[in-house]
């Protein structure tokens, strides 16, 4: 991976089908050039906060993190908790993109400081529309926070 390429979207999704559909929806809006896809919570944390992550990567945060909740190894809720608890990453917008409509999930994620919660529709048109709109919003319309530099 080109270290110069700025990653704008970090997609945390364990289901390859859902990942493919999400990427396709983003592609329709020409937003896929800068998507990084990781398959579980541990990989996500490693990518953003990891000891092995190079300083540049830590410095240049994605504009938005798309986070599924049900993930193997480290689940979405834990990733959210860690990201929002860390001074370096807590201002990165996190959008939960999940099948769950359960109230407990919604309440808990907002309690942890999630920026948005989207329920993946079963209908593909609606799903495509939702992802597209979300992508346009966070990448183009929303003003991202200033990247926080890691402690030297």
């Amino acid at each position: 991976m080109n270290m110069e390429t700025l990653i704008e979207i970090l997609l945390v999704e364990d289901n390859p089908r859902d990942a493919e559909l999400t990427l396709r929806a983003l592609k329709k809006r020409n937003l896929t050039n800068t998507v990084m896809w990781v398959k579980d919570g541990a990989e996500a944390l490693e990518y953003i906060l990891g000891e092995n992550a190079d300083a540049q990567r830590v410095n240049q945060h994605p504009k938005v993190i798309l986070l599924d909740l049900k993930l193997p190894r480290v689940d979405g809720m834990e990733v959210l908790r860690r990201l929002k608890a860390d001074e370096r990453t807590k201002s990165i917008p996190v959008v939960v993109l999940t099948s769950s409509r359960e109230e407990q999930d919604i309440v808990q994620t907002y309690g942890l400081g999630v920026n948005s919660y989207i329920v993946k529709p079963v209908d593909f048109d609606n799903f495509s529309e939702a992802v597209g709109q979300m992508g346009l919003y966070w990448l183009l319309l929303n003003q991202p926070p200033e990247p926080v530099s890691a402690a030297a």
Partner: protein
Amino acid sequence: MGDSQKAILNILDDSSAEKLRIEATQKAILNILDDASAEKVKIEATQKAILNILDDSGAEKLRIEATQKAILNILDDIGDERDKADHLNSEMAVEIAERKRVEQELETQQQELVNSNKELEAFSYSVSHDLRAPLRAIDGYGRILTEDYEGYLDQEGRRLLSVISSETQRMGQLVDDLLTFSRLGRQQLQSSDIDMTTLAQAVFQEWSALDAYRALQLELKPLPPARGDRALISVALGNLIANAIKFTRNRDPAVIEIGSRQENGLSVYYVKDNGVGFDMKYAHKLFGVFQRLHSTEEFEGTGVGLALVQRVIHRHGGRVWAEGKLDEGATFYFSLTDMKGEL
């Protein structure tokens, strides 16, 4: 004077002395007799006293005997009472043990119910996540196929793919409905006073918005207030109204009447429509889960709506039933008991 005279004088002296002696002796005897008689009187008096004492002690003895008898009776009664008390005690002990056993059983059952509920929660949660994902994939990939291989598909090919898509939608709807049904049955009731007239108005507005283009006519009579869980009653009313709107699709105007009447002191609410109605001989099937009286071609639906209504109404301790006639509309009635003090 001679010796004879002296002798006579001596004899006279002696006899007078003798007389004195005899008189003295007589006196003494009389005194002794007097003493004896006084003594006799004293003895008599003492005898009388002794007899009196004997009499008194006799009476006393009788009194003591009577008291003894009374005490013995009391002791007997006490013995009887103690026996009775002992008997009652052992009966109560048995009852208490029985009651404890029943309490224990209830506690166990309650714990089982709590566990069962927790399992259902976990199950619903899992369903919520895990069933929807494959459905989304089926629908999504079908669409991708349609989009990316448009050139290779004729009309029939596109139709087949659209069937895949619509069936997937339907399953998604079923999953949602089942989850709602399950949750409604489990969640805690929160009771409050409900203005049924404004609620019915609001619910109708919500559901008719989707069919704004149609000639929908609402006849809302003033409804008596009810007491129950507002959110749940709202869902129940919503389903009844949505049904009325759906099954009057082919009517112009579609007339939906919401009113109430009193039955045995209870308020009975009803939602009446002039739609396609139903055959009363299938009335018992109306409220079953996934039970439908129409094909999906005629009218879409999963058959959960009325089951939901029934569940909500039953949780409020009420009744729900329907009357209908083929092609002449249907009326759905429900009552809610007064939940004061129960929630």
